[in-house]
């Protein structure tokens, strides 16, 4: 009889222990852990050398230290040409705090010039318009297959966010929510 009692007590203790252990173990779905589980950015942005339409030669990384918007567009893409004036406005408003690099996939450079000519707006100096006719930057480096798309790169030259499709609230909502907070982050530069 003694042994039976011991068995029952042991079983109860195991049960109680299991209950306690389970209770402290939050519900989990079958998990998979990315090696970079702690990061919330997409790591370093890919650097490339570019020449703007006005002939200025630079690397993307030269703009590190403040937020960069890497915008992919083309003059034949209807949503892109609707969105473009908004980006000009944003660049003009935050001339000292932001660089916008607008990469066009147009085959001919003339198409971009035509489009900009029709816009009749002065392009601010922090808006760099570059031609990527062979789509090396657009597709091979940044995997952009649908236009328009925009990457937000933080002052540490890490990709912070990606915007798929045209955005209508660059100057207010996106600036306030996503870009302005980046101005205060500590940089490694």
């Amino acid at each position, binding site marked *: 009889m003694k042994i039976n009692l011991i068995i029952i007590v042991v079983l109860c203790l195991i049960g109680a222990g299991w209950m306690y252990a*389970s209770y402290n173990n939050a519900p989990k779905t079958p998990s*998979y852990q990315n090696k970079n589980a702690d990061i*919330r950015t997409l790591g370093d942005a890919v650097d490339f050398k570019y020449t703007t339409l006005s002939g200025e030669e630079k690397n993307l990384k030269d703009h590190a230290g403040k937020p960069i918007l890497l915008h992919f567009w083309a003059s034949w893409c209807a949503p892109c040409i609707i969105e473009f004036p908004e980006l000009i406005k944003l660049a003009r408003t935050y001339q000292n705090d932001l660089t916008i690099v607008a990469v066009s996939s147009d085959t001919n450079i003339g198409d971009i010039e035509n489009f900009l000519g029709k816009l009749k707006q002065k392009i601010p100096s922090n808006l760099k318009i570059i031609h990527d006719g062979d789509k090396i930057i657009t597709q091979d480096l940044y995997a*952009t297959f649908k236009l328009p798309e925009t990457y937000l790169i933080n002052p540490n030259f890490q990709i912070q966010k990606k915007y798929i499709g045209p955005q209508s609230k660059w100057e207010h909502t996106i600036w306030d929510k996503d870009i302005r907070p980046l101005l205060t982050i500590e940089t490694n530069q």
Partner: protein
Amino acid sequence: MIRFFTMLFMIIMGTASTVRAADIDLGNWSSLPILYEGRVEPLDSFARLHVKKFSGRESLPQLSASEWLALNLFDPTTAVNIPVFKIRDAAQYGLTENKKRLYSYTALVQLIQNQQTTINQLLEINAEDWTPEQQHLVEIYEHYILNTQILRSLTLILPLSIGDNEESFLDFRKTQNDLQRKVQNIVSRKGANLENYTDKEKEISFLSYQLSLLENSAAQNVLLRIIPDQWDGAPTNWFAPWSIIRDGTGDPKTLEYIIIWRDMAEAYRTQNQELWDYSVQDAQAYFNNSKLKIETLYNKINLTNVSLFLFSMALIFLVISSFMKSSKINKTLNYAATINFGLGTLSLLTLISMRIYILNRPPVGTLYESILFVALICALGFLFMFWRSKNTTAILLGSISGVILMTAARGFVGDDTMGTLVAVLNTNFWLGTHVLCITMGYGTCLIASLMAQKDLWMRIRQPQNLNFQKQSLRHLKTIVIISLLLTTIGTILGGIWADQSWGRFWGWDPKENGALLIVLWLAWIIHSKISNHISDLGYVMGTAYLSVIIVLAWFGVNLLNVGLHSYGFISGVAKGIVVFCVFQTLLLAFLWRFIRKKRTA
């Protein structure tokens, strides 16, 4: 016309090549991850599940499941000729019957074309009104759609059969928009009649058409979710390769990973083992994949079969031993049986431990897992008894329970035994308490039932052995008390869980009634014995009949398809349950009658 369709098929499926799967050693490729039905699992599990679904087998005559998947992904035009689909009465669908009843995707396409009208009509009516043949036809159609998706999964990165170069859709994508604009220009100038076009214009139009066709046929394909969302630290969202085109989910890291897969495709096509190993290693570097490796190992060693084999061997040795007169041989056979039984229990314990590690939750969440767990409880229980008594009868009873339960478990292996649990079950606390308590209760009840049946048998063989009867009754009382304790606590915990999940403690749901039935049965025999309303024999009979009560409460109520425990509903086992219950009832009735008769005599 045939050439045109052949060409279209090649465009949609990617490029043609004539490699054999066995020429590349897949190595660790099978343990790369994929998100399928809410769970991240190795490609090996995905492959096995689909091979089993299509063919009803674990692997194909000349290919393992992973090799079949690799062939489908990297060499679709060869894969379409591999017989993988099980079709009953193929002749009625115009196919030539073969012994193995396995047919290729190409044959399936022919079947679907012949039966398209019938299938469309069937899909219009209620599934419950289908005959078994009609159900089989719809199943074939579903398999066709599923395999089509698998075949098209990587067409984004496979070289296209366009021109002499080996460029993929991803490369052609750079020129696609320009081509479309050129075609628009040609059409606006010359109309839609091809005869008015120059050779160059025809080439441009055809290339643009081919690319659009490929994109339209494959872009909706989201089955092969092999790319984790790079933005998410512990990704819950995974993408199929085509979604970088369709949904804009591409980014530099995703592209890096896709390029690795493109290298794999090239290695597979060119039979370059070195490039293959290098690419697979690169892909593996993205993941902390110890779980994926364990799951691949789990798939390979198939411990369900190993345990069943070892329990069967133990049983066979003991049966042979009972016919042997030489005590030396008897001793050897008993020893061999004990070793086999011990190893069977160990492999079952390993199987359950691996599942706990892979699924990151307590061992019982599905009916299949409950069978494994009950088998383990029985095996451990009988091992404990053997350790205490040194009597091989415990090994015999344990082997019987092991063989029966593991055979039942094998019936569920075809389904995804590691599938995601329904939301209500996804709580480690209740899975670790209520469910384990109840299933342990099932296990101890089965132990009690088997011991009681052995007791009845001994009452026939050695009616004068009162010492054994007394000792057996004592053991039965202990195990029945433990069973009552576990099932009662388990049922009450279930009520609390039901209160939290469904807002009521008790709802007279069939599953709840089943649990209550066990508790009441156990309480009845215990109290009847204490109050001397039943004899020792009655008590043993009542305990022996627990097996029927357990089977009804465990499986039987799931057949009713009523109540809130819908995640446990099953079908197709009614016959088995009826046979078991009738057999047990008749056996116990026979034993009862025989013992009574012997006593009277």
